[in-house]
């Protein structure tokens, strides 16, 4: 499976601190996406970065992509208690399945932000 791997598995920080999560993958990608999941709910798309992009911003989110290292990072600045959730990276590869729309998900990082 071309599943991405997030690191760390769990992260615990105080409100106001920055949270950084990493994702590594194995084979070439077309794009990489980050999703958020609140406990017991479905996933919500946060941001997409294409293979020819190096950095992207959306509000308090900053995503970087290093295709030479096959890795990405998600930075949440000035975190809030409401950011507590699981965060998943998902990759779209250059294969038939991906051409048809499938993504490969990692196991996720559980972020806890303490007030």
């Amino acid at each position, binding site marked *: *499976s071309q*599943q991405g791997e997030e690191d760390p598995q769990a992260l615990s920080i105080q409100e106001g601190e920055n949270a950084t999560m990493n994702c590594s993958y194995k084979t070439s990608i077309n*794009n990489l*996406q980050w*999703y958020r999941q609140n406990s*017991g*709910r*479905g*996933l*919500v*798309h946060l941001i*997409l970065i294409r293979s020819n992009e190096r950095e992207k911003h959306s509000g308090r989110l900053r995503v970087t992509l290093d295709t030479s290292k096959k890795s990405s990072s998600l930075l949440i600045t000035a975190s809030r208690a409401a950011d507590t959730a699981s965060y*998943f990276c*998902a990759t*779209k590869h250059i294969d038939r*399945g991906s051409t*048809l*729309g*499938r*993504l*490969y*998900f*990692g*196991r*996720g990082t559980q972020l806890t932000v303490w007030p």
Partner: protein
Amino acid sequence: DVKVTQSSRYLVKRTGEKVFLECVQDMDHENMFWYRQDPGLGLRLIYFSYDVKMKEKGDIPEGYSVSREKKERFSLILESASTNQTSMYLCASSLLGTGFGEKLFFGSGTQLSVL
């Protein structure tokens, strides 16, 4: 906003029962997906469909089948439920192709318990 609706939030079934999980999306998306999510294993793709009556196996199709008779509806069928199919089941949809269509929209999930 895109809405992906899963018919049940919680479901309890007996071993050997035939189980139907229903998913409906309201945005005319070509692609629909069924994932299962287990602690420590992340999201694993069971089946996906890129058009009516078309289906593709994911990474763990054994013990499952799917049906897509109409574009908006994608059903997951457990022919004979077993205890190892106790899990959170997530349905998702997306547009076919690149650009906006590359992100997935998820339902809220169905927590299935097989006793």
